[in-house]
């Protein structure tokens, strides 16, 4: 019994630590532009938040379902162009421009439906190849469609904010997007929808045989992911004030997302956030260093990091660190009952084994 109570209090302590950590992170995130008011610094913050949103949106679909999409730039660029075109067409300027964000989200969702219906019919490598194909189709359209202005691209509607306020305001907008996306990803994880996505990741056919409507579940996640990516793409467009086909639909964009997710810990929301927070400011900083001018060196470095992660830390920082911590904590003590070690439960005969029911009423396992 005391065993039980102790377990209970550790759970509460863990929860308190988590909540405390979350509050602390939120406080740091909110205070950041107040402490560092220099636009050159806040610029790092804006891009970090943009990429936290992008990678979390990618996680909602790819992290849960196991379908690695490298066509997220389709949504990012389309979001930027949708915002530019709508603002130009309806003559929207100033802060009213932000009222177009829901419209941009709808455009992203609308693109995700046919994209998903085609791409999600196939799996694994074929799926990846099809997402790449979609990416190039959209980039070509951005070059050639009449309303996208070809290589010169589009300029964002004018915002009358002072240089300092400009960055700070965008920081908070991007932070709000990031927080909302993390919250959505977290809710999905708790929902049966999230469980079904992860079941699809492990064995899609088996999941279908247990009643999971796989196509509907995958498509829903893809649409949510696409809508969010389009919205944050348009925020990026308003922030950088312009978009060209090769920046909106950037081939490196998706590689960066995948790298961020894998570096932090593939399949984890925390992994997505951590990966974005490390890589995005890192590459931005490298690009500002004169000796790395042209940015090509930062790209080479990205590739090198990718190799190192895949070779030495294939599961990413958070799972690896978690494992290390558990090993430190349980050193000298027997590990938690390994499922495979104690033989079969049937050894007790036809009577069902004594019901231990650890955690049948508490928090479920697998909450990561």
């Amino acid at each position: 019994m005391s065993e039980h109570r102790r377990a209970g209090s550790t759970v509460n302590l863990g929860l308190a630590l988590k909540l405390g950590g979350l509050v602390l992170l939120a406080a740091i995130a909110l205070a950041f532009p107040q402490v560092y008011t220099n636009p050159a610094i806040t610029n790092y913050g804006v891009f970090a938040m943009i990429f936290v949103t992008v990678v979390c949106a990618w996680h909602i679909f790819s992290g849960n379902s196991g379908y690695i999409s490298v066509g997220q730039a389709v949504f990012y660029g389309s979001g930027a162009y949708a915002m530019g075109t709508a603002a130009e067409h309806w003559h929207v300027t100033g802060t009213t421009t932000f009222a177009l964000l829901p419209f941009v989200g709808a455009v992203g969702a609308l693109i995700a439906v046919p994209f998903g219906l085609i791409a999600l019919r196939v799996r694994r490598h074929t799926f990846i190849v099809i997402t790449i194909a979609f990416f190039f189709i959209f980039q070509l359209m951005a070059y050639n469609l009449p309303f996208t202005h070809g290589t010169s691209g589009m300029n964002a509607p004018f915002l009358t904010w002072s240089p300092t306020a400009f960055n700070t305001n965008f920081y908070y907008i991007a932070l709000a997007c990031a927080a909302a996306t993390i919250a959505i990803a977290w809710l999905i994880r708790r929902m049966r929808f999230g469980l079904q996505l992860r079941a699809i990741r492990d064995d899609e056919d088996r999941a279908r045989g247990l009643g999971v409507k796989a196509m509907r579940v995958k498509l829903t996640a893809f649409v949510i992911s696409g809508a969010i990516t389009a919205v944050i793409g348009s925020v990026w467009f308003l922030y950088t004030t312009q978009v060209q086909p090769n920046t909106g639909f950037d081939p490196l964009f998706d590689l960066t997302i995948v790298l961020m997710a894998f570096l932090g810990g593939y399949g984890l929301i925390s992994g997505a956030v951590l990966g974005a927070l490390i890589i995005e400011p890192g590459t931005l900083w490298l690009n500002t260093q004169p000796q790395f001018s042209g940015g090509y060196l930062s790209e080479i470095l990205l590739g090198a990091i990718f190799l190192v992660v895949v070779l030495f830390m294939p599961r990413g920082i958070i799972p690896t660190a978690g494992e290390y911590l558990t090993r430190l904590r349980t050193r000298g003590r027997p590990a938690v009952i390994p499922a495979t070690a104690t033989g079969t439960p049937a050894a007790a005969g036809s009577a069902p084994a004594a019901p231990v029911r650890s955690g049948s009423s508490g928090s479920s396992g697998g909450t990561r």
Partner: protein
Amino acid sequence: MTALLRTEGIKKSYGGVHALNGATIEVQEGTVAGLIGPNGSGKTTLFNVITGYARPDEGQVYFGDQVLTNAAPDKVFAAGIGRTFQLTRIFARLTVLENMLVAAQTQDRPRNLLAWFGKDGWAHQRRHAMELLDFVGIDRYANTLAGSLSYGQRKLLELAYVLVADPQVILLDEPAGGVNPTLINLIADRIRDLNSRGKTFLIVEHNMEFVMGLCGTITVLESGAAVASGPPDIIRTDKRVLDAYLGADLEEDPR
């Protein structure tokens, strides 16, 4: 009495190979039916056709008064047919309990907003899932990752999560294959228990002792068609069956 599950003249070929060549079988409601035959006789293919994992080239699948031919796996499951696989297929990176919930949650719609989002909204399903894990004897592993279970335990988990949705008919593909004798007895016990409570079974199995002891009727498949069907005693001595499949093995009983 009409059959609960019936296939009629199922044909299915892969390339030039006729996996099924006019397979007609019947499973009566409330029975444990066996399906035996040499390797490559089409047993698993027939399972795949019934459960929507393969499309038949010809023929029909009937379930009660419904036609299930070409229905998708999730439709077949919703109609009340659950199955296991010869090589167990579990969700390795979900916990044992989560494995159970995947099946449970496709059954009912959550009743309120809390149920959509909160884990505790599924209290009823979780309780039911735990009862079933207890029933097959792996409840103490509820919170371990399913991937760390032993092969036999995976078989039990598969049986348990098929039961979650309370299907009318359960198709088991080699439930005793590669499992130790004690566990085989447990599995047989559980099947009898469920059958006494009205569940209908169709079992593919190579372990003759298991099949003969458990099944009320046995159908023999050979080269993609049913060559004989009847109670174990008849099948045991049927000339065609001995020729087609059992040979002298059964009389000598190598065990």
